[in-house]
């Protein structure tokens, strides 16, 4: 009785199709990240070249925290900085897709061009480590800007085509 | 011995019947067509006409009707068995009887004699019923003083019925008494003859008083 059998199959499909069925393991998304043993800051060596420095802070922290930490200076590491020291520095960061806007407690004149690179690289490194895309630009907002000081910048050490995003 | 006019178109049949009827003592004249037959009839009126229905020219029915118009000479038709229309039409044309071809001369002779038979046992009384007066010895009938002309068959039928007014005669009885037919006689002979008799003696033939129909049985005379 082929007709009866096919009718049964159709009915079974109809009735069995409802509800959530168990499934196998499915790859769904990137794993979350943002965990790190410390933060990476960028300073200048004797030749004025940009160099990363690991700070064993025990956690990654935010972009603003990393930049603030950078503004405190290189300490006793033997490295230099292109940013004028300041009393209890405090940076603020606003992250929008593609751009990080950093509000610095400094005038544009207090930061050398390599110093600006230091800030940009530090912010981007933290941004990437906490899962953000490498293709992100950084705008620096100084207390006293100079012409072109707030143009979007990138880090010469971090390729936007780096692995990851 | 009767004078018979035989109207028959086939010469051999005609000659054979002339011979046979002659041997039965009849005086036979013959004619081959309706026209010559009617001429012969006019030239000398016979006692009886034996008429073949299938004639060239004026056919048998027409010949019969013309003979009937001239008087009361009886007519016997020659017909083919089962040609019922012939029989019906022939009787309506006024024939007294019919025989089926091929007919044995003895049978035809008996019919001839029956048709021509005179009522002798009628007695000599005069029966008067209303306007109708039947003289059984003179064999004359008159209605309201006017003489009525009847063929011998019609007269015999009237005499038979009026002999016992009120008595019902079945068709087979009448066939036997009036036509001398056996059980197989054709009852249409009776019906047709009654029809003709009524047109002659009844005031309104459609509503007869003398010859009345008894549905399912036959006919009776009166009661008035």
């Amino acid at each position, binding site marked *: 009785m082929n007709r009866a059998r096919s009718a049964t199959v159709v009915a079974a499909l109809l009735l069995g199709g*409802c509800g959530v069925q*168990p499934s196998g393991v499915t790859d769904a998304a990137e794993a*979350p990240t943002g965990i790190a043993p410390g933060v990476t800051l960028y300073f200048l060596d004797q030749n004025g070249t940009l160099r990363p420095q690991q700070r064993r802070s025990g956690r990654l922290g935010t972009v603003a925290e990393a930049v603030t930490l950078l503004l405190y200076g290189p300490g006793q590491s033997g490295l230099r900085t292109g940013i004028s020291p300041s009393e209890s520095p405090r940076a603020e960061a606003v992250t929008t897709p593609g751009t990080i806007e950093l509000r610095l407690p400094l005038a544009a004149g207090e930061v050398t061009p390599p110093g600006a690179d230091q800030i940009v690289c530090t912010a981007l490194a933290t941004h990437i480590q906490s899962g953000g895309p490498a293709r992100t630009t950084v705008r620096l907002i100084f207390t006293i800007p100079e012409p072109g000081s707030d143009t979007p910048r990138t880090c010469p050490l971090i390729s936007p085509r780096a692995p990851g995003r | 011995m009767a004078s018979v006019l035989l109207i028959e178109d086939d010469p051999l049949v005609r000659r054979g019947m002339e011979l046979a009827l002659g041997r039965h003592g009849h005086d036979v004249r013959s004619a081959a067509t309706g026209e010559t037959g009617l001429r012969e009839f006019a030239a000398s009126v016979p006692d009886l006409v034996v008429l073949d229905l299938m004639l060239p020219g004026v056919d048998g029915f027409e010949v019969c009707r013309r003979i009937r118009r001239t008087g009361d000479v009886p007519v016997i038709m020659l017909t083919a068995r089962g040609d019922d229309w012939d029989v019906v039409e022939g009787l309506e044309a006024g024939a007294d009887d019919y025989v089926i071809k091929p007919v044995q001369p003895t049978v035809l002779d008996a019919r001839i004699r029956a048709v021509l038979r005179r009522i002798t046992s009628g007695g000599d009384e005069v029966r008067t019923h209303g306007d109708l007066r039947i003289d059984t010895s003179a064999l004359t009938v008159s209605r309201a003083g006017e003489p009525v002309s009847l063929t011998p068959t019609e007269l015999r039928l009237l005499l038979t019925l009026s002999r016992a007014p009120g008595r019902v005669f079945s068709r087979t009885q009448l066939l036997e008494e009036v036509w001398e037919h056996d059980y197989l006689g054709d009852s249409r002979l009776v019906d047709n003859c009654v029809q003709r008799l009524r047109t002659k003696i009844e005031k309104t033939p459609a509503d007869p008083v003398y010859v009345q129909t008894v549905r399912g049985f036959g006919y009776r005379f009166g009661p008035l």
Partner: protein
Amino acid sequence: MRWWPRGLRVRLLAACALVAFAAAGAAAWAGAESAGDALLASHGQQLTRTVTDQVGAVTPSLSYPPDQATLDRLRAAVGGDTLVTYRGLRSAAGTGPGLVTPELRDAVRDGNRLVTQRVVAGGTPWLLIGTPVVITAVDGTRRPSGIEVYTARDLTGVDGRIDDLTRSAIGAAALSLPLAALLALLAARSVLRPVRELRDTAGRLAAGDLGARTAPVGADELADLTVTINEMAGSVQASMAAMRRMQADARRFAADASHELRTPLSTLTAVMEVLADTADDMEPDARESARLAIAETRRLVRLAEDLMEVSRFDAGTAALRVEEIDLAVAVRESLRARGWLDRVEVEAPGPLPVRADRRRLDVVVANLAGNALRHGGPPVRVRLGATPGEVWAEVTDGGPGLAASALPHVFERFWKAGSSRTGPGNGLGLAIALENVRLHGGRLTAGNADGGGARFLLHLPRDAQETR
């Protein structure tokens, strides 16, 4: 196969409705299925994104390597039904931890990716989400941190919505059933109308209306069938017409021939008596010759009359002239007319009124009695009787009876008992008797009596109808 309806209309209707219903049901079901899948997928994406965001929001502030407090914080950030592990440490809450399957754990451990799995536990559908938390280097490279997060999300809400979708799909399919039935009805009508017309035509053909045709419509198989049936009817009609023409010709020939015989027979009949009267005076040879001529002429007359009678039956011109008669009287008169009253016993219970044709009934009685007297032996007996609607006559003889092989043929024309064709009858008598009985609407059957003699049984309706 009993349960499957047999009528073409019902079958067509059921099949069409079933197909339409199945199609609508399948479409609705497929729609519901894909909608359900899409729903499940988007819900799953939303859940994983939420978990990713929850984890990602808290990780930068988590110390690494983590201690128990750190794991607890992470677990709290993800929400209930969550397990967080790091090497030997573990922080668990709710149902989630118990549901984690080995294959999910393996997938989390082996790949740097977030994975999901749907499970059903205790009737409740769950989405399991498992992910490692990875450490991303400045250059973008990622490596596992050793922290794994497992969490379970209840899918009962989605399940309910999928059930709703399925139910509405079934509802839609059910709604389509009356529509499907209506369409099927229309389709069945349009298909069956020509079939019905064809059936009517075939019925008329079967009933003898050979002029019946159906106009073929369209160019489908049914039209082909119609054309074929029309052709068949046409050829049957043509051959029937040819056969009828031949039959009519044969009958007309017989009628004409017997008719033409009548004129010479009339002459012969007229002169035979003359011959008979004079035969006594002839020499013996001439006398015998004359008598033979007379006897044969009588036979010839009888044969010609019978042939004409048969022709009239064949032509349908035989007329019935019914009168009120008594069967007992009719039988006795027939026998008396032929001088057979002393050779045939008649048993009648009393008057047997019947409406019949006197002359035709006489022919029947004469033929039956004559047949018994000629072919059977004494005693020949006629028993009469009546039922409420009929009168009957039974004619039996004391002869050897009819042979079983003869029974089907006794009423055939020119059939004679035995091989001899020289008997007194001409072989038309019983055939004519049967035709006369049929004309009355009666029955005539032949058989053998218990005593062994032949037995003919005649039934006539009491009120035969006049014809013509």
